[in-house]
């Protein structure tokens, strides 16, 4: 603590330079935070996927349907405990930019298949009893100011026409990463009103009796429906989510590349700044050594300065990223899980300190090795 005034005085020696270096760290770590948020948003499905759930889609494409008759055939297979199905609706609420996913669901089995979604017993009962009933995720309901009992008009884009639903319940997730933007309504209501695709479902979700058997069960399903008009492709929910993300490109690679370039640039900036800071203080560092401060002290002094700048800038950047994430999804529904997890804040701080160490180590070593006699002569 007694060396604190010396440390602070050195940090504020060139206020503009220190501020700009802190600013560089802040911008880089803000970007880091955003990349993590976006990556998390894309891979959220993978992270929260149920270990014992499989997704069955049409082998040709996910947008191709499967017949509802598959439900009973799937239930008869060994290793399958439970089956439900869903269908993408793709409607518009008031304005096309108001995006949230709408699914026609199998009312009988949806709730048991997704125990991670919380909804009160009364609300679920009211939903089941109302053929035009619907349930909305908490964030979507909050976003549009919906209350239970509201009439929700949605314009169909695939299944054209005006559709109206009675909001009977609002569900919430049990984990922060759970998607609370979905809108569910009765599959029977959809099937009754649509003019094409009657008896088709978008995909099946099923629960296996033993997660260790998932791969075997998936193979059995696909071979069961091989050479039929509706061949299937079965994956675990995690693989399904991952393949969904891959359709949008290699997000992970993009993040690593952009992040790597940013941090390498930052490393050069920090190293250069610390080198300049040491070079212009050679005489002072020499005086400290002459007074009896050890080489190790000088090394630590320079390193701590570098780390403080890294910590302050990194912390500021991550704080801004966190605040930004708290404002919610800025894309209007494409990235419903817009969240910066604490573990990544810690990782960001760690990375900033690592860059601070790497940037400060060479100047610190040169300060440590400084020969007092030579340095004093240069003053």
């Amino acid at each position, binding site marked *: 603590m007694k060396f604190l005034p*010396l440390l602070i005085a050195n940090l504020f*020696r060139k206020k503009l330079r220190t501020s700009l270096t802190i600013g560089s760290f802040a911008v880089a770590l803000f970007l880091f935070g955003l990349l993590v948020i976006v990556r998390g948003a894309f891979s959220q499905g993978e992270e929260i996927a149920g270990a014992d759930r499989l997704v069955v889609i049409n082998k040709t494409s996910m947008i191709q349907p499967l017949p509802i008759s598959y439900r009973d055939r799937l239930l008869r297979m060994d290793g399958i405990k439970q089956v439900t199905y869903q269908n993408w609706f793709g409607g518009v609420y008031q304005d096309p930019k108001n995006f949230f996913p709408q699914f026609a669901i199998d009312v009988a089995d949806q709730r048991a298949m997704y125990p991670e979604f919380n909804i009160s017993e009364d609300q679920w009962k009211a939903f089941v009893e109302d053929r035009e009933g619907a349930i909305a995720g908490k964030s979507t309901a909050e976003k549009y100011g919906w209350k239970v009992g509201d009439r929700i008009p949605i314009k169909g884009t695939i299944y054209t026409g005006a559709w109206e639903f009675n909001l009977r319940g609002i569900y919430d997730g049990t984990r922060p990463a759970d998607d609370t933007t979905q809108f569910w309504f009765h599959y029977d209501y959809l099937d009754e009103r649509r003019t094409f695709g009657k008896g088709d479902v978008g995909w099946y979700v099923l629960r296996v009796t033993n997660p260790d058997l998932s791969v075997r069960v998936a193979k059995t399903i696909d071979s069961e429906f091989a050479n039929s008009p509706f061949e299937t492709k079965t994956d675990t929910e995690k693989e399904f989510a991952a393949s969904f993300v891959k359709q949008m490109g290699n997000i992970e690679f993009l993040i690593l590349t952009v992040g790597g370039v940013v941090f390498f640039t930052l490393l050069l900036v920090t190293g250069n700044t610390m080198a300049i800071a040491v070079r212009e203080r050679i005489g002072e560092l020499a005086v400290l050594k002459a007074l*009896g401060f050890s080489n190790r002290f000088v090394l630590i002094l320079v390193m701590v300065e570098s780390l403080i700048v890294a910590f302050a800038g990194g912390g500021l950047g991550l704080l801004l990223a966190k605040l930004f994430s708290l404002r919610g999804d800025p894309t209007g529904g494409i990235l419903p899980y817009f969240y910066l997890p604490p573990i990544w804040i810690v990782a960001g701080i760690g990375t900033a300190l690592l860059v601070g160490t790497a940037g400060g180590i060479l100047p610190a070593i040169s300060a440590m090795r400084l020969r007092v006699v030579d340095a004093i002569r240069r003053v």
Partner: protein
Amino acid sequence: MVRVDGNGGAASLIHVRGLDKKYTRGGEEIHVLQGLNLDVDSGDFVAFMGPSGSGKTTLLNLLGGLDVPSAGTITVAGDEITHMSASKLTGWRARHVGFIFQMYNLIPVLTAFQNVELPLLLTKLSKSERKQHVETALQLVGLGDRMKHYPRQLSGGQEQRVAIARAIVSDPTFLLCDEPTGDLDRKAADEIMDLVGRLVKEYGKTVLMVTHDPAVAQQAQVTLRLEKGSLVGAPEGAAKP
């Protein structure tokens, strides 16, 4: 008593024998100090004079443990410093040597108080004890009312007085002054030399000083000249008592 003939007793505070220092510059070997002997007692005030490049500052650096000799020994208060490790020498400097440089060498971002406090940060003194020592040192050099001033807010003479306070605050065994008035006008230089004289006379400090200025050198009890790597000008090894 100051002697340069190598016949001083081992009881001298500073005891230098056969001191050699060689540099290699541009492939050429330069023999700066050659077999130099010196004995300085506690409370002596010695001035070193000589032409540029004669080795005055080199001698001061060697005596202060900032540089290592090519040959010979330096013993200060019984400690032979020429064979000490770098880390031991650093600790030894903190305890025994007070440096006063020509360019003051204050830390510009620290106040006068904080500059003077620097050597005490290496001791185990408490904050209040350090404060007391720093205030005493600054009052002694006449800057009790300038403690919160930064070096840029002080005149050259005042800066050098802060440097002197920094040099004496930890009560070192001896002071090394390298051209302490070299950057000052005559009036400020006289004030600084009066202060150094007081440190010797009233507080019994041992001072070794390098200067180009004969008027400044006159303030010392003994003036030694460095020529061709050896100390000369003191008949029978002893200078002005």
